[in-house]
């Protein structure tokens, strides 16, 4: 066989097989790692790679405007992810946790950016309906606070829209009594 042709054939074989053979030799004890590395599996199964555990938002302040029937709640939230997060919008219906009575809806007042592992304040405003006021006056007559469920919570963050099917319960929400 022509020497040039033989050399080129050997070169082709070396190029095609060499790198792959090298990887197989390096990972011979765990070939799966060569295809699906363990850090990828960890990243997919647990996106909370930082040391910050996930904790639900904590209610730190609340205000109520009886004229507009608007409650403004301020939550403290820690970003448990290892990348910065921007919550562009949040919207949900509100229901009484105990009686499942529709009370109105709530939304985020402005978008919030939270650095990885850091805290931020989320301000949510909710407007009680007339029916909600009646419900508080009849079913929660002497109560100053009650537990409220966020139903059908929709979140928009970093190009992803989430709609939770589960209810999110917020305890001790100040309620209007007229």
């Amino acid at each position, binding site marked *: 066989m022509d020497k040039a042709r033989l050399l*080129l054939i050997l070169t082709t074989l070396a190029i095609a097989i060499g790198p792959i053979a090298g990887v197989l030799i390096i990972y011979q004890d765990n070939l799966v790692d060569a295809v699906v*590395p363990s850090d990828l599996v960890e990243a997919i199964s647990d996106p909370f790679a930082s040391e910050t555990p996930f904790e639900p938002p904590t209610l730190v302040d609340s205000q109520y405007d009886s004229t507009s029937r608007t409650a403004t709640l301020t939550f403290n939230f820690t970003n448990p992810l290892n*990348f910065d997060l921007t919550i562009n919008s949040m919207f949900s219906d509100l229901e009484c946790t105990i009686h499942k009575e529709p009370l109105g809806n709530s939304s985020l007042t402005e978008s919030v950016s939270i650095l990885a592992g850091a805290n931020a304040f989320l301000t949510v405003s909710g407007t009680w309906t007339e029916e909600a006021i009646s419900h508080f006056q009849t079913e929660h007559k002497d109560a100053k606070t009650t537990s409220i469920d966020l139903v059908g919570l929709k979140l928009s963050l*970093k190009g*992803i829209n*989430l709609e939770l*099917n589960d209810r999110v319960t917020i305890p001790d929400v100040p309620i209007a009594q007229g």
Partner: protein
Amino acid sequence: MKEKINWFGLAAGIVIIALVAVSFFIPWWQISAGENLVEARVSPVNTYFNFLGDTVTVPLISALNLASVLSLVAGGLAILIYSLTPTKSYSKHLLGFSYRKPLIALLLFVGVLFALTFVIQSVFSFHVPLYGSEISTLPTTLTNGTTIEVSLSAEFKWPFWLAVMAAGLCIATRIYHKKANFAQEFVSNTVSSTKTTK
């Protein structure tokens, strides 16, 4: 005898070497989910995956990238040498060795992209676009009932079209080699130099 040059081959060789250099920095194709929450920038010579802030390296893909780099560089150099000496005895071997490489890299790259998107669609019922933007919904079986819509954006970058051009130039080189009778020239030159020697 005035040495002839296969100009298509010369152009192909330069384009292939430039393609390899550029492809290290600019991908042939890239896709991002959300606002770069998940990102992939791929080419046969370099692959970059970012998943929720973590850069992921797949060793087997790195090996395939290395094989592609070596293959394309070897092909580019071979076709350059051929283009400057197309009538030599070894030239047809250099041409045969080199002209298919960009085309094979291109076809394999596109084939793998199509296959991956097809597999993801079939297995996860999740559509991944090859070009353009769209909003895809993750299957609820994977999200514990939560509805998650993700905006996806994908595009072919200009090095991909440079690869198409390189493949085209290589095929043109092969066609021109035959049309210009470079092999026949080698035989004629060999016969005439043998007669002269006698």
